[in-house]
């Protein structure tokens, strides 16, 4: 089987719409969470929701990157996807070195064109208006993968995966296996999401899992998640192809595991998360003792953080309380189907730089969880192997394992 390495990175995120900006925010602990603004179709006056914070991409103007036809025929989540994919592909010089049919595009997206759909539904029910003829192409969940392929002229296997909050990690994992097996020699993989629409806010508010304050993963006073948006992309390829063209390698992707809780649509189970972690470690051909950093799913809800901590104890035993762990959702928010991609990017940067990002906003960790949450500032010395967890509603779990690269 091929070894698989990462040779390109890209992102549009609440903490920066370039990898360099993302990196700076990640290691300085600058959060992208702020008061909600510019929500499409939100009524004037009292928003009528419990929470007021979200991680929004505030510095992104699609007109600076895309022509009017693409902008009109696609939703914000696709705009993010195209721009982030361009960054990663350009950095890897992807289409210069690989034939279009040898490249896969595997994306994660849970919500699709949520704001476009809501806008049309509102017009339909309040004005009995006709649906805009571009509604379908704006709202379909696979629009991100499709538009990336059109934009970059890539003709290999192309699809979007939808597994709620694990979508992007499933996408990266599937792409990893495709490249490792030789089905494709390279892939762009990641996730894209723009879920910050009025109806979606209200729906999350009704579930009472969104923080009325701010996302504080693994904190004693954690009170929920904070919604986010964005896209992040990795270019992966065989080690052989990367070395043959002397490409810069950022990290090695070494394992992927997935599982289902088969239990409850919203209540996560430690056994399911533990199974996914064990499978990723086994797939990587390493011992659990080699894992030196965990980029946790870490939503900041009572249920997630307790379950994930319990799962970590099941997998790592006595070492569980000594493995440095952080949730970068405290910085870039919970971008649902794109979360796993933003966290994979954070993990790659952590391995590359040899320092581990902090969990922002936490002053007192929940001692009962008995995990080593990185607080206040990045840890200066880094491990060589890390895992990144994604645990989704519906009990769908995905975990990737990565190793640092030194030439």
């Amino acid at each position, binding site marked *: 089987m091929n070894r698989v390495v990462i040779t390109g990175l890209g992102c549009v995120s609440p903490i920066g719409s370039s990898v360099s900006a993302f990196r700076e925010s990640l290691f300085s602990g600058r959060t992208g969470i702020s008061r909600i603004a510019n929500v499409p179709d939100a009524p004037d006056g009292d928003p009528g929701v419990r929470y007021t914070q979200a991680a929004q991409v505030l510095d992104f103007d699609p007109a600076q990157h895309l022509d*009017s036809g693409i902008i*009109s025929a696609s939703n914000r989540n696709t705009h993010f996807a195209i721009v982030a994919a361009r960054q990663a592909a350009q950095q890897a010089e992807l289409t210069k070195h690989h034939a279009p049919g040898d490249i896969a595009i595997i994306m994660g997206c849970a919500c699709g064109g949520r704001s476009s759909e809501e806008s049309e539904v509102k017009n339909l029910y309040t004005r009995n208006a006709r649906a*805009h003829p*571009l509604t379908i192409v704006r709202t379909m969940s696979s629009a991100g993968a499709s538009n990336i392929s059109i934009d970059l002229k890539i003709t290999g296997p192309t699809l979007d995966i939808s597994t709620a909050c694990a979508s992007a990690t499933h996408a990266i994992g599937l792409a990893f296996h495709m490249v490792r097996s030789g089905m494709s020699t390279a892939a762009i993989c990641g996730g894209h999401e723009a879920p910050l629409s009025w109806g979606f806010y209200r729906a999350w508010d009704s579930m009472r899992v969104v923080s009325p304050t701010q996302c504080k993963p693994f904190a004693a006073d954690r009170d929920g998640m904070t919604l986010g948006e964005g896209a992040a992309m990795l270019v992966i390829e065989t080690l052989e192809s990367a070395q043959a063209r002397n490409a810069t390698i950022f990290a090695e992707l070494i394992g992927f595991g997935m599982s289902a809780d088969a239990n409850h649509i919203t209540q996560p189970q430690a056994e399911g998360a533990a199974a996914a972690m064990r499978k990723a470690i086994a797939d990587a051909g390493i011992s659990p003792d080699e894992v030196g950093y965990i980029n946790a799913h870490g939503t900041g809800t009572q249920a997630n953080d307790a379950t994930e901590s319990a799962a970590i104890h099941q997998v790592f035993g006595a070492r569980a309380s000594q493995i440095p762990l952080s949730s970068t959702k405290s910085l870039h928010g919970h971008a649902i189907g794109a979360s796993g991609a933003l966290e994979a990017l954070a993990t790659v940067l952590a391995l590359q730089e040899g320092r581990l990002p902090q969990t922002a906003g936490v002053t007192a960790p929940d001692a009962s969880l008995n995990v080593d949450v990185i607080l206040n500032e990045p840890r200066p010395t880094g491990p060589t192997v890390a895992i990144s967890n994604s645990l989704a509603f519906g009990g769908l779990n995905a975990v990737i394992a990565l190793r640092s690269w030194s030439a």
Partner: protein
Amino acid sequence: MDDITKRSIEIIAKAKNIPADNINLNTTFEELNIDSLDKINISFEVEEAFHIEIPDDALGSLKTVGDVVNGVKQLVEAKEAGSAPAATS
């Protein structure tokens, strides 16, 4: 320039994100790189603006900005006269 012509050109210009001054009645869809999806989008916006309905079989014959303007004028006149919509070309 009459209102229908002015408004139609504005709609086409907005759809392609170009200045309206760059468009006249002789400008072709090919020159503006208007594809089938653009054509449907522009037709929808024109229909909304003038409260008309462009027949499906007329869409394929739209080749220039002038075709759009003439079609809209025919449909608006037909509507004001209370008659059935006419073909646009």
